[in-house]
């Protein structure tokens, strides 16, 4: 059976023997059906079976792509429409703004998930032990983040009812934009320091390694 070019929810796409279900599809009575409206793509699975002798080739993956979302955050700023309907999942890379510092964790709001602007900010939490991977017992929150910093992190858990848990425990993760006490944008000088370009005053941060 040939795949349709576009599918609507509930449309039959193929049997599970022939295809693997990807994003935007679901299985009902061992048949793959579309669950969102969009163009259908089938990509041959890149993971060829490790055993070279066996002929078991993995079936191609059927997926339905979501329509692209405009990058502008809507006419009234964030939270006013625009942006994509996307949820943070475990191991997705996010950009978050620090909103509050506590003794055991920093609160943040997740603004961007995997380079896609969210429609609405998600509440997140960076626990003290998740800030960096080494010397976890010596981490101090106030030497890692300040309120208003923009942080790149990765989601490690969907968390409880309120918060997603975000971690910054790798070199590429941490503060990407920070302002000094005088309100000027600072630049990173080491993995633990940002510096003000005018006054030259250094402030401690858990800096992200620039690409």
């Amino acid at each position, binding site marked *: 059976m040939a795949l349709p070019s*576009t599918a*609507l*929810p*509930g*449309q*039959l796409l193929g049997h599970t023997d022939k295809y693997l279900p990807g994003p*935007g599809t*679901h299985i*009902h009575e061992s048949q793959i*059906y579309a*669950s*969102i*409206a*969009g*163009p259908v793509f089938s990509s041959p699975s890149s993971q060829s079976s490790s055993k070279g002798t066996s002929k078991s080739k993995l079936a191609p993956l059927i997926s339905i792509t*979501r*329509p*692209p979302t405009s990058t502008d955050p*809507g*006419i*009234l700023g964030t939270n*006013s*429409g625009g942006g994509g*309907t996307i*949820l943070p999942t475990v191991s997705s890379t996010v950009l978050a703004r620090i909103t509050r510092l506590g003794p055991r964790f920093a609160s943040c709001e997740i603004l961007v998930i995997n380079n896609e602007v969210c*429609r*609405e900010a*998600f*509440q997140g939490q960076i626990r003290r032990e998740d800030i960096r991977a080494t010397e976890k017992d010596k981490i101090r929150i106030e030497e890692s983040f300040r309120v208003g910093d923009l942080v790149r992190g990765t989601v490690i858990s*969907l968390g*409880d*009812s*309120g918060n997603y848990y975000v971690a910054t425990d790798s070199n590429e993760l941490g503060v990407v934009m920070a302002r000094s006490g005088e309100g000027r944008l600072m630049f990173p000088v080491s993995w633990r320091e940002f510096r003000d370009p005018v006054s030259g005053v250094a402030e401690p941060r858990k800096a992200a390694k620039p690409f």
Partner: protein
Amino acid sequence: MNTDRRRNNAPNGGTSAPVFARTIRDSEYLEKLRPSRSRGPNELRRIFLQTSIIPSASGSAYLEIPSSSSATSSTLIPPTSCLKITASIQGPKPLPRSAPFSPSLLLTTTVKFAPFATRSRRGYIRDSAERDLGVHLETALRGVIIGERWPKSGVEVVVTILEGDEDGWWGDSASEGSAAGSGWGLLNVLAGCITVASAAITDAGIDCVDMVCGGVAAITRNPESRHEKELVRILDPCPAEHKEVVAACVVGYLASRDEITEIWMKGDVGADPDALIEGATHAAMGSLAVVKEVLLEALEAKFHGQTEGNDAGLKRKAHDVEMTGGA
């Protein structure tokens, strides 16, 4: 309505042109204005549907079923009402702080008649009929949404009825009041709500098992028959066009799975309720044809705009989908 002290309420009463004394006193003249069904028993009214009409919502749709009877020139009052419904989807968005953890999508439906939606004015606060419609709509939609794909989030389906189907012909309610309050129009409204909400949900990109569509079938007394007892089964009834509706049924129907998520039956069904339900599913399949056509068209425009890059506005080709009945 007496409890609503927060707004400037308009005076109670009608929202359409006044009924002149002559029409009520002269019953012969009044009967001349009575609309009658000009379609076949299995023919639906024409449906207009458009998606993505509200830019700030993640998904939205507008449904209109125009009045089938042509307006007479002798009176200002339209013979039958139209059905005009908008639906907007807010979300999926994170749950409020106070809400407990939920592993799947929380669905909230709100159905509201606009104050001017019916011949007698509606209040601004939702009344029991509107809340009832909301619950019916929620059961219809809950069966199609795959909630597990959206943990920790909620979605709001807000349906506003701009013009609702009425329960009977206005001339009857002015003289006898037999049809008033019988609620036949509500069934049509619910079917429209299900169809438009389903289109809006698909527009929002929320995972669904199938597209649910609403359809109505009814049993009416045949006006032309000599026997008073003879009944006819019709699809998509317009209550104003029938002197007496005996029974009616609305379903939320999943065509590709052949499942029903919502059913509401009313009146004296008789010995064979299954025929009525089946008629309603046929009517639902008729509206599904429109929904599919519209969504495919919108999809084409959406993804075409992506490749062109400059086509921000959603351009729809303006051609109608001809309705040819489901049965």
